[in-house]
């Protein structure tokens, strides 16, 4: 099994096609409402995804913010492609040894889920055929693209979706690897290295949501599936395996369907509300009680394939239910679930007769909805999926779920959905531009790591962490001020990240770090206390002194330390008598906990040894 990674990184240059800043905002200036129609771009071949979305007849609400303008509202033509953003994309191309195009052509990619006010996303291919080396293995980088981010969803109702325009137009650099990744750790390492390279450009946005990863899974005999927004890359293995299992189950079902010559008809769905009224319970019963309807279709040949007997998690019935759900209707019931929701016995016989699914190898599907139009739409989607099931596995975009499975999201975009964005002129990439970028290329992260290791003795892992978090510059500056490399590295690569990855992380300014290090180096508290002091600062302590006090680390005198050691040894007299010098280890742990960083660990060990030695020599008291 193999997977490919697609990384989308937001840039901190201005927006891609207008003069707005690339910033999110909580201020809503005005809201407009729009409808989007299914069009096929210039070919007018309305593609499946577009028609699918438009059929839902939704209204989209768009919130304009101080960081969006008429371009995001689709009221003004796009401006020329942001040259700074293109420089970042070209810099990445050079860092990844990829070939930039001679001329960049911006395209429109039709997207009708409302996340772009114009109904399409502007995207351009910038470079091809790069490569990335991670831990001795080389990965291909087939494409590097530059595109605009979509509006962000802020709400949903049954009539429509609400988006905010602050994110629309923020530039994204998209870097795709070939399908060469086969484990979670591998994916994480590749993603991290790409992240480090991107940050080396110095022009990327930071913070939650600024980088997103998708996984593309291709299996033999199956179909290409995109998993959008995989949050935990270490689980990639789980997702890929899950996808392989799912596709295998679907291929087996397809084979059976073909053997049975199953065919999906176009007959109108049948309203079976009256058959079920008074008998159905559960979701079907509830829907009828609320004044809704239940419609059904027969699926000859599909019997037993919707929920296979071995109870595997992957089944065709779930795929059908997901299609119904994405057309806006929850609550699909199929014949393999029988008996359930009151559908049993003679009721089943009647339903089978009404829906033309009499045989044992036939199935039927019921959908409950507020009205027959909604139910009809859901069943049309279900029928479409049933047809695909006879063929095999459809290409799709799927959402990863927390339990390692995936759920249908929408059809995969086809190439028909892309056509030229004629409002933006093509952008030449002359040799001079590349030469100028090459001259300004940031040092390759590999070189930076090598330097840190060689010059300062930090480990390769610590060096990578500093890079990952963008802390190399500050590390260099603090070390240049005379602070010890080890302590500085501990502070930047361990203690600060330990304060947590929250929505609004505490920013440690450089002079604060300088002060903090100086305080430790003066001996005002021990380096073991660095963690608690940093935590206290992150928690709001206004100065280093206050943080030290808050962490309970006001310095402990040598005498106090000796007294503490004494009392601990006394408390544990039996242990000491029994083990002698061997009591050192357990007591050291206890003593360190008591000292809590107020004195250096080495010193604590020394004092404890002295105390134990004294006790041993004076004998039991």
């Amino acid at each position, binding site marked *: 099994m193999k997977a490919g990674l697609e990384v989308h990184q937001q840039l901190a240059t201005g927006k891609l096609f207008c003069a707005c800043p690339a910033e999110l905002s909580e201020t809503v200036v005005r809201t407009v409402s729009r409808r989007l129609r299914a069009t096929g771009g210039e070919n*007018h071949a309305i593609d499946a995804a577009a028609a699918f979305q438009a059929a839902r007849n939704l209204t989209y609400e768009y919130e304009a913010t101080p960081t969006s303008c008429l371009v995001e509202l689709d009221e003004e033509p796009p401006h020329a492609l942001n040259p700074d953003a293109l420089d970042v994309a070209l810099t990445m191309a050079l860092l990844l040894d990829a070939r930039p195009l001679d001329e960049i052509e911006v395209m429109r990619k*039709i997207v009708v889920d409302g996340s772009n006010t114009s109904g399409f996303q502007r995207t351009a291919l910038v470079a091809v055929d790069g490569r990335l080396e991670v831990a001795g293995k080389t990965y291909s980088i087939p494409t590097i693209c530059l595109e605009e981010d979509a509006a962000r969803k802020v709400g949903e109702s049954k009539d429509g979706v609400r988006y905010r325009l602050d994110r629309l137009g923020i530039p994204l650099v998209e870097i795709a690897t070939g399908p060469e990744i086969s484990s979670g750790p591998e994916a994480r390492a590749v993603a991290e290295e790409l992240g480090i390279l991107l940050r080396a450009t110095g022009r990327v946005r930071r913070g939650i949501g600024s980088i997103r990863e998708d996984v593309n899974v291709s299996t033999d005999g199956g179909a290409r599936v995109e998993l959008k927004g995989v949050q935990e890359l270490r689980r990639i293995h789980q997702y890929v395996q899950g996808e392989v299992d799912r596709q295998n189950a679907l291929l087996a079902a397809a084979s059976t369907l073909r053997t049975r010559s199953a065919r999906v008809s176009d007959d109108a769905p049948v309203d079976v509300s009256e058959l079920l009224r008074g008998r159905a319970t559960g979701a079907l019963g509830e829907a009828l009680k609320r004044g809704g309807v239940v419609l059904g279709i027969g699926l000859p040949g599909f019997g037993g394939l919707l929920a296979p007997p071995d109870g595997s998690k992957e089944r065709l019935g779930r795929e059908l239910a997901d299609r119904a759900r994405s057309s806006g209707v929850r609550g699909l019931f199929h014949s393999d679930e029988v008996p359930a929701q009151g559908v049993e016995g003679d009721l089943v016989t009647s339903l089978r007769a009404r829906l033309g699914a009499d045989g044992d190898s036939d199935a039927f599907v019921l959908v409950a909805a507020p009205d027959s139009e909604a139910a009809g739409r859901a069943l049309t989607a279900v029928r479409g999926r049933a047809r695909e099931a006879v063929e095999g596995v459809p290409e799709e975009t799927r959402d990863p779920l927390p339990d390692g499975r995936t759920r249908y999201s929408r059809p995969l975009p086809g190439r028909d959905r892309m056509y030229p964005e004629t409002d933006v002129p093509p952008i030449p990439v002359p040799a001079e531009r590349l030469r100028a970028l090459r001259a300004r290329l940031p040092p390759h992260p590999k070189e930076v790591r090598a330097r840190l290791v060689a010059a300062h003795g930090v480990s390769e892992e610590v060096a990578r962490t500093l890079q990952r978090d963008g802390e190399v510059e500050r590390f260099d500056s603090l070390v240049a001020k005379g602070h010890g490399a080890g302590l500085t590295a501990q502070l930047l690569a361990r203690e600060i990240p330990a304060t947590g990855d929250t929505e609004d992380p505490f920013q440690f300014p450089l002079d604060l770090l300088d002060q903090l290090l100086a305080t430790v180096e003066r001996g005002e508290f021990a380096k073991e206390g660095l963690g608690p002091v940093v935590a206290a600062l992150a928690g709001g302590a206004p100065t280093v002194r206050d943080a030290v006090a808050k962490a309970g680390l006001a310095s402990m005198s040598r005498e106090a330390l000796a007294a503490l050691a004494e009392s601990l040894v006394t408390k544990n007299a039996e242990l000491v008598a029994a083990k002698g010098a061997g009591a050192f280890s357990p007591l050291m742990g206890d003593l360190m906990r008591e000292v809590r960083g107020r004195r250096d660990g080495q010193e604590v060990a020394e004092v404890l040894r002295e105390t134990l030695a004294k006790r041993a020599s004076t004998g039991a008291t």
Partner: protein
Amino acid sequence: MSDGAPVDPWVRARSLPMGTVVLVRTSDGREWKGAVVPPHELSGDRILQLKLASGYNVGIRVGDSDRIEVVGAAPTNGNGSPRPTSRPPARGGEGWVALLTTGGTIASRVDYRTGGVRPVREESEILGFYPDLDRDGPVRVVPVFDRLSEEIGPPDWEEMARRTVDAFSQGARGVVIAHGTDTLAYTSAALSFLLENLPGPVVVVGAQRSPDRPSSDGFTNMAAAVRLARHPEIGEVVVVMHDGLSDDRFAIHRGTRVRKMHSSRRDAFRSRNGPPIGWIEGSTVHLARPFRARSEGLAVYSGPMGTAAAVLWFQPGLEPSRAEAYVAGAAGVIIAGTGLGHVALNHLPWIRAAIARGTTVAMTTQCLEGVADPFVYATGRELSRAGVVYLGDMLPETAYTKLLWALGRSQDPAVVRDLLLAPRAGEVEPRHDAEDHP
């Protein structure tokens, strides 16, 4: 071409049919495979555009030692030739609306082959674009011509007017005219003068966004226009376009009172010197001001338009000789003067001379709001004494079309003057409220 002379690969590339799949090997060892697509008008020198399998277009510079190999023929359906989603029109039935198409964004498609904009002609094509159109009753499409609206001129206004009269005489309840937005307001004003005695609404409509875009305002504009064309009481020329930036509200503008006030916004069209006549929200038409009622008789064509009119937009420093040269030979001039209708007084001599020759000179304000009034300042009084006709709050563009229409009725300057001043289609509004200024 002599034997042995190699064909420049660039020349060869340009001769290939659109959609041909090629493999390009450049001299630096790079390889590209894709379908040949039309170059962008602004593409660089020797840049070949290919569509890759992913759907992305790339621009590759073809050097003279690069190699191009054809690896696949162009698909027979033309690899992008439009496959229109079309429907046959519903025929017959009472209460049909005529939809006159003249080109413009609203009835055009982006042609993948030429990269240009191609007007939609076929009735079924239009209905394929706008499937909701005949929801309330039949719509018959009448292709009139295919022009970007900046190419339209007075003979085209005459043609549109005549076809409107024809449609009404064949029993149409109302007429919708699909038009490019750039000069839409000129057309609506011209038609207001060229048409009399209308038995139903004439609704001019456009789109600021092309219909290949899912967000096109054309869909909802067209539906609103057709809905209004069925209104049982209105008998005048109006414009229907978005009111505000949402898709749920449309303004009904009097054809002589409206102007395109923004180059790209959906709500670019604004009534000037007063609010729109009304609004359309959902299926509700709300009329807020008096309108001309439909007549029981036949529509009348009152053309043709005259010729040789001009609009002179005054600027400080404009040399009188330049202005004079500009209007030489004109039968009539509309001046868009500053403020209440002023020009620098060193222009008086050529103005007097023109009037003496029989040229009609009329004044409007380049403020586009408020009245042109000759009595408040000495400049106005001088111009008025010289024979310049002051046109109140008439828009310069509307005045231009009215002038042409008047020149079509008479060559006598005194008659032309009287016609300009006589209210005819709501082009002058005597009453202005504080709330009128948008």
